[in-house]
């Protein structure tokens, strides 16, 4: 599974992209965030407040109950501020 991070999630986690294979019990986007938090203090800090973490799977916005597949591109980022 390809995981992308943007903006301050990227800087806190320290990478913009990684290839990960979450354990089988990580079934949804919400599960993924919970699992990522356990990977280290940068992750825990970046993902502390779910309310400000937006999730896209294969470049579409999804909720925290969205099911995951091994080949998904999952992106985590703060609320957007373009325009």
């Amino acid at each position, binding site marked *: 599974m390809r995981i*992308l991070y943007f*903006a*301050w999630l990227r800087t806190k986690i320290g990478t913009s992209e990684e290839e990960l294979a979450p354990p089988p019990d990580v079934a949804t986007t919400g599960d993924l965030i919970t699992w990522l938090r356990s990977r280290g203090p940068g992750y825990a800090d970046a993902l502390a407040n779910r309310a400000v973490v937006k999730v896209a799977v294969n470049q579409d916005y999804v909720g925290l109950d969205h099911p995951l597949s091994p080949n998904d591109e999952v*992106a985590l980022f703060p*609320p957007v501020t*373009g*325009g």
Partner: protein
Amino acid sequence: MAIRVQAEDFDVGAELAALSDGNTAVGGVASFVGLVRDVAGGDAVSAMTLEHYPGMTERQLAAIEAEARTRWPLDAVLIIHRHGRLLPGDRIVLAACASAHRAAAFEACWFLMDWLKTKAPFWKREETADGDRWVSAKEEDEAAADRWHTRTP
């Protein structure tokens, strides 16, 4: 469909003229040009950098454009959004809608900007005297986008 995400600046006059070029059914073109301000939250901003999510950006902008076209009778739509480092006064974004009808052009253009502010995956990082900082999303932008859920054109 005309969606462009680029580092380069754009020529507003040429872009707007191209929207109606050869189509004399167009009665008007409404547009919005977003610019880098030199101040934010009371602090002087010397520059900003726009990060984006290549691929998803184009996908979301295309979806926003398609939604506008289902809501209003539009002859042409254009969204250009820049990324990278920009200075105060620099152009960030151009949204423009051509229509036979003035109200459709205005509403659709405003809709595009409100949705773009809340849906297009761009993030601004400002350079200030106290260092760099990420811009926080504004609740007022969410509210501006939300009104299009209920408002009928």
